[in-house]
């Protein structure tokens, strides 16, 4: 229920704001202004675009495989939105409590590959098919470094439940946590950003970089947007889609971005914990933590990572296919495996 009541409206609202923010940031980075005309500073531009998009004719080319063509966007969005089910919202509140939450999230999200394949195949279009094949190859490849980097966190946290994982990263933790993974520095009482995973286990910084890159690839974002590269494939697997069905693809792309950002915040940056530590008797962490604060912190952190993704989009050029594959298989995967090994050693001999 929480997923539908909180995350769905938030996702929809986020897409509206996110597209606006993306265009604005693109404008600023390129010395332009971005949308300015609709509403003050163009703030309702996306709403106008959305209304226009919803009114568009729902084109169904005659040669498509109707069933697959119509089912594909629903599968893609459904798969990604199911991933939100296990996200913790704030202290003690989360959608579905299953002890294999993180695992579930990753596996369900990988189902969108199926939808993309169907979209590409069902469109009966060479560009769509190429886009789908590229997309699937890319997502399947990048799932490995993504999974390995997540596994690093799992080894540190000793759990697959996201709620539990967040709880360990702050002042409410039941287990002991140490600054920089050094046993002498116990920081349970201090909390704040110092007890986030990324600070209590410094190796996770590398894991976070791998996770972030793979997350970009998973959500088909620039610089990993080969599946939909407009200049080569005319939009890739959603070439033949229009109107609301195309909107669903866009929604799931942004949904994936947001999901990856939430995951990054939860796994590495303390989830709904406030970044402010207790300083001596001045208990800043106690004051800035709580159910309401938690929502703010979590969404704030996610928004920051979204911002990073958008900046990456307007900074880097698209990768070539062979570069894409060699990045995944020759660099990210070996490094992630090595990291897994190192963190295991650290966990066994240094901390406990």
């Amino acid at each position, binding site marked *: 229920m929480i997923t539908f009541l909180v995350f769905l409206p938030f996702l929809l609202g986020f897409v509206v704001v996110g597209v606006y923010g993306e265009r604005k940031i693109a404008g600023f980075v390129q010395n332009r202004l971005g949308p300015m005309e609709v509403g003050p500073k163009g703030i309702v531009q996306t709403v106008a675009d959305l209304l226009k998009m919803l009114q568009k004719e729902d084109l169904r080319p005659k040669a498509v495989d109707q069933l697959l063509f119509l089912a594909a966007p629903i599968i893609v969005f459904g798969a990604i939105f199911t991933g939100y089910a296990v996200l913790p919202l704030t202290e003690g509140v989360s959608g579905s409590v299953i*002890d294999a939450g993180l695992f579930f999230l990753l596996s369900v999200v990988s189902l969108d590959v199926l939808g993309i394949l169907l979209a590409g195949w069902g469109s009966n279009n060479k560009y769509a098919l190429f886009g789908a094949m590229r997309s699937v190859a890319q997502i399947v490849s990048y799932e490995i470094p993504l999974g390995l980097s997540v596994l690093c966190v799992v080894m540190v946290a000793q759990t697959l439940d996201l709620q539990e994982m967040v709880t360990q990263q702050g002042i409410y933790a039941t287990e002991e946590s140490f600054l920089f993974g050094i046993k002498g520095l116990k920081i349970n009482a201090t909390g704040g950003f110092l007890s986030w995973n990324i600070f209590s286990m410094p190796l996770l910084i590398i894991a976070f970089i791998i996770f972030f890159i793979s997350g970009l690839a998973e959500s088909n974002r620039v610089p990993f947007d080969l599946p939909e590269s407009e200049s080569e494939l005319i939009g890739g697997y959603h070439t033949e889609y229009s109107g609301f069905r195309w909107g669903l693809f866009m929604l799931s792309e942004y949904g994936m971005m947001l999901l990856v950002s939430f995951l990054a915040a939860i796994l590495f940056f303390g989830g709904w914990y406030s970044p402010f530590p207790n300083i001596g008797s001045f208990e800043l962490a106690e004051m800035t933590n709580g159910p309401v604060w938690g929502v703010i912190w979590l969404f704030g952190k996610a928004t920051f990572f979204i911002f990073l993704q958008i900046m990456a989009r307007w900074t880097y050029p698209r990768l070539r296919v062979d570069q894409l594959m060699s990045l995944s298989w020759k660099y990210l995967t070996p490094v992630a495996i090595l990291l897994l090994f190192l963190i295991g050693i650290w966990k066994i001999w240094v901390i406990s």
Partner: protein
Amino acid sequence: MTLNILFFAFAAMIVVPLIYLLITKNIIRAAFAFAISLLGMAAIYVLLNAEFMAVVQILIYAGGIVVLLIFGVMLTKRSGDEGVFTAHHQVIPGVLVSLAFFVLLTQSIFDVNLAWGEEVTSTDQVKQIGVLYLTDHLIAFELIAFLLLMALVGAAFLAKKSDQ
């Protein structure tokens, strides 16, 4: 009660796509139907409180094997339009063999005497499974790892450019 309704709903979710799979001549649609029935199985695992199994089911079958299947079809021949035609050879032996297999399966299913056992209460399935893997089933675990490693090496060898 709701559990029963859900169970039959998910059972239908398994069986109906499989029937469609047998009837249809469109390979891609067949693969799609297969994926749906696999998801139904995962749902039944969840009903049985075997969440880890459900997740593995989704990850490996729906996310992995079906995609591999579809990829295989796409990379070989596009036969979506004309459908698949297979000649019927040796109909009688085939029917006999499948009937025998069906009888064997039903027999063994009834022999096992399936029943609702104890509710799985442990919420720490992952840990239990992990521990079991590295204690009781260590040999199987190692064999699987070895097999996978061989598959990886073989794939790398096949993908390697031949110098000629």
